């Protein structure tokens, strides 16, 4: 009964989304503000109704109502409570519902937050958001419903995929979706700007915080996904250039380009078409990412054919959104010709353009790599794999180029940089990079990636530190305070700039983590019996015993490994080989000991019947910097969003 209420309210939400679109059109035609107000009410009601839909599904999961097909497919009587709620977004249907629910939350927030200050934009915002909600709800209700009943009712559910029964997986999809959906707000404002012809900088300024918030959520979502892969898949890596990962990385790349490029328009009123183009591409990639991840299309074109209706609908929907958006952009392009004023190739404007070029080429590379197997399969009926070796080879130079630009961009003046100022800003960082490379080389690091990475990270980091140090000192002198108070004063005086620099530092930390843990990873796999030991790096692992342990819905063989460094017992690691009861799926649960910002990572992928265990030890130096860098990046964005509003904003 409850699930039918959810189903029904979702259908009503669909009807209201049509009403939302209609009221937006009427508000524009009649110029009667009542229509806009009823549109606002429609959006708000959609949020409430979809909330009811979500809750009814959550409720069905909590009471384990296996008469609901989606619950039967993604839950089980023994599934722990914590995961029953997360199982709501464990499959295609439920995650689409979560997506559109988050969209309704953000739309409602945006409509109420900007109602007073942006009255002229509201009908457009309501119209665009209603249209996207409409598109999603049609898919959910007609082709991909999580509310369907199952007859006869099975005795038990098929269980949630054991790999998804993990805390990181509980948070990963909502974060990712908040990122995708968050970009719909700047997208809607951009559409409003295009349709209304108010093509100034207004829409960018209004949505600046939204964009940063979306970007932060997307970044967090991607990093959480990496963390999940790291300890749940058990091979000691966090990024596999898997099509699903790539699908979330593409909007991130273009979104990052957008966040930088809008700064040029804010300061110099240039590149209007370009910024509209970037936000349209970002949101389109978000849509594509959402749809393709769980529909299986990315694995093979053949899986597309097994479910042609859904696939066709998705194609048409995404095609329509992209078509309308770009159509509007092209129709408006003559009005958008802004007078470009460039004083020099050596200026911040120009660096931003090259930053954009690198980000877009990076995104195009991922796009091409992800779709190439599909294209080749369609055209030539040949199958190839585009895996990590490809991306590592082509992506590294692009990423290093971007990091180098990151060291230049914020410290080169707008309009025109003189040779003297370039020397002053960059000679020390350039030199520091060289010194670090020499030091790394002497200490025995000869890997080309590590050295090149060391150079650009030092260069970019030094540029940030030098600039901030100088400003802090001036503030300290001026206020007669010490350097710490000076730096605090400098930070708060221009919080937007320095919070961004904090995010940049996070990126650098992340990059160091990636390079160290990739290039200097040590791995060892040995077969051993109880009592045996093996050495990896400075550590000695002794298999003390293997015993059976049981969780609520799984049984496992657990290896108890004593970890010695020299003669000292430093810790015990307990990797497991689990079998989940409902599906009889095996998983390997890793055990991790964190030390010196790195990880000692241990799994036990096999245990034979005569008691021989296969142990896989991995040393990942500095791997904690990957997520530590992510935290710093997020902190930077939060400080940026929470900065005090200046008068002109």
């Amino acid at each position, binding site marked *: 009964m409850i699930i039918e209420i959810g189903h029904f309210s979702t259908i009503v939400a669909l009807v209201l989304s049509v009403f939302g679109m209609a009221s937006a059109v009427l508000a524009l035609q009649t110029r009667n503000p009542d229509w806009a107000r009823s549109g606002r009410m429609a959006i708000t009601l959609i949020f409430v109704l979809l909330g009811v839909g979500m809750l009814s599904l959550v409720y069905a999961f909590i009471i384990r109502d296996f008469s609901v097909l989606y619950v039967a497919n993604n839950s089980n009587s023994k599934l722990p409570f914590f995961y029953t709620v997360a199982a709501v977004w464990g499959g295609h249907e439920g995650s689409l519902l979560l997506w559109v629910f988050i969209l309704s939350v953000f739309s409602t927030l945006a409509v109420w937050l900007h109602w007073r200050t942006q009255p002229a934009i509201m009908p457009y915002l309501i119209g665009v958001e209603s249209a996207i909600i409409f598109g999603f709800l049609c898919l959910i209700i007609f082709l991909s419903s999580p509310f369907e009943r199952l007859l006869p009712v099975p005795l038990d559910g098929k269980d949630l995929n054991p790999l998804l029964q993990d805390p990181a997986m509980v948070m990963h999809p909502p974060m990712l979706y908040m990122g995708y959906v968050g970009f719909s707000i700047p997208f809607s404002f951009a559409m409003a700007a295009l349709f209304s012809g108010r093509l100034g900088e207004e829409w960018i300024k209004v949505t600046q915080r939204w964009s940063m918030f979306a970007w932060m959520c997307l970044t967090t979502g991607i990093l959480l996904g990496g963390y999940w892969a790291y300890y749940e898949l*058990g*091979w000691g*890596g966090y990024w*596999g*250039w*898997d099509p699903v990962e790539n699908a979330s990385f593409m909007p991130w790349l273009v979104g990052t380009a957008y966040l930088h490029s809008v700064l040029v328009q804010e300061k110099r009123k240039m590149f209007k078409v370009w910024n509209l183009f970037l936000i349209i591409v970002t949101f389109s990639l978000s849509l594509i990412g959402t749809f393709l991840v769980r529909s299986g299309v990315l694995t093979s074109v053949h899986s597309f054919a097994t479910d042609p209706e859904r696939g066709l609908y998705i194609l048409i929907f995404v095609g329509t959104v992209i078509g309308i958006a770009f159509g509007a952009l092209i129709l408006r392009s003559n009005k958008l010709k802004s007078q*470009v*004023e*460039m*004083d020099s*190739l050596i200026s911040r404007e*120009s660096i931003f*353009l*090259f930053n954009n*070029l690198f980000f877009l*080429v990076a995104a*195009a*590379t991922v796009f*091409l*790599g992800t779709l*190439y197997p599909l294209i080749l399969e369609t055209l*030539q009926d*040949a*199958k*190839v*794999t*585009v*895996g990590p*070796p*490809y991306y590592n*080879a*082509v*992506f590294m*130079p692009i990423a290093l*180029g971007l990091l180098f630009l990151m060291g230049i961009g914020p410290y080169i003046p707008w309009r025109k940089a*003189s040779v*003297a100022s370039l020397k*002053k800003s960059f000679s020390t960082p350039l030199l520091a990079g060289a010194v670090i490379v020499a030091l790394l080389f002497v200490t025995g690091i000869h890997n080309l990636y590590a050295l090149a990475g060391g150079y650009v990270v030092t260069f970019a980091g030094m540029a940030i530190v030098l600039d901030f140090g*100088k*400003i802090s000192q*001036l*503030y300290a002198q*001026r206020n007669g305070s010490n350097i710490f108070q000076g730096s605090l004063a400098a930070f708060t*005086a*221009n919080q937007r700039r320095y919070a961004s620099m904090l995010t940049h530092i996070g990126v650098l930390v992340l990059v160091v983590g990636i390079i160290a843990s990739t290039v200097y990873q040590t*791995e*060892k*796999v*040995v*077969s*051993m019996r109880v*009592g*045996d*030991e*093996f*050495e990896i790096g400075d550590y000695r692992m*002794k298999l003390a015993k293997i015993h059976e342990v049981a969780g609520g819905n799984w049984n496992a063989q657990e290896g108890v490994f004593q970890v010695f460094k020299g003669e000292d017992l430093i810790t015990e690691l307990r990797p497991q080989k689990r079998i989940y009861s409902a599906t009889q799926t*095996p998983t*390997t649960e890793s055990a991790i000991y964190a030390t010196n910002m790195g990880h000692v990572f241990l799994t036990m992928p096999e245990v034979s019947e005569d008691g021989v265990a296969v142990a896989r030890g991995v040393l990942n130096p500095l791997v904690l910097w990957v997520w530590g860098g992510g935290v710093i990046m997020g902190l930077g964005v939060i400080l940026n969003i929470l900065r005090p509003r200046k008068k*002109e904003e």
Partner: protein
Amino acid sequence: MSIRLTWCLAALLMIPLPLSAAVQDETDVDIQVREIAKTLRCTVCQTENIWESGAPLAQQMRGVIRDRIALGHSTEEIRAYFLSRYGDYILMEPPKHGVNWLIWVAPFLLLVIGGFFLYKEVTHWVRDTPTPPSQPEPPLDDEARKRIERELKS
């Protein structure tokens, strides 16, 4: 020490003690298996190599690699064997021949072409922009001070 006792001790050292801790280590074969396995794709997984994959098929394929090493085949021969059985799909990256060259050079081509056009455009814009009257550059400290004043005001 008598010669007999020395012999006994020596003999004792040669017997592996059944319950004492044996230090296990990877053999050269293990390392070779890993090197080969990391370059081959698990055909039933999503872009995972057969070293990292936990799928039964990947396990079997690792076994095949090990057997072939035991038969004395070289790394290249084993890779060639898998390539002949499964085709290009088995490799973790597109082999550099024929149409595949396209995706290997595309990123750099895009970067070069994009960079060239950007450079042309920007220099074009620079030429079209009226040059502002040139001013001598103020010393840095003044400039920085002005920046502070500005930031303090806002």
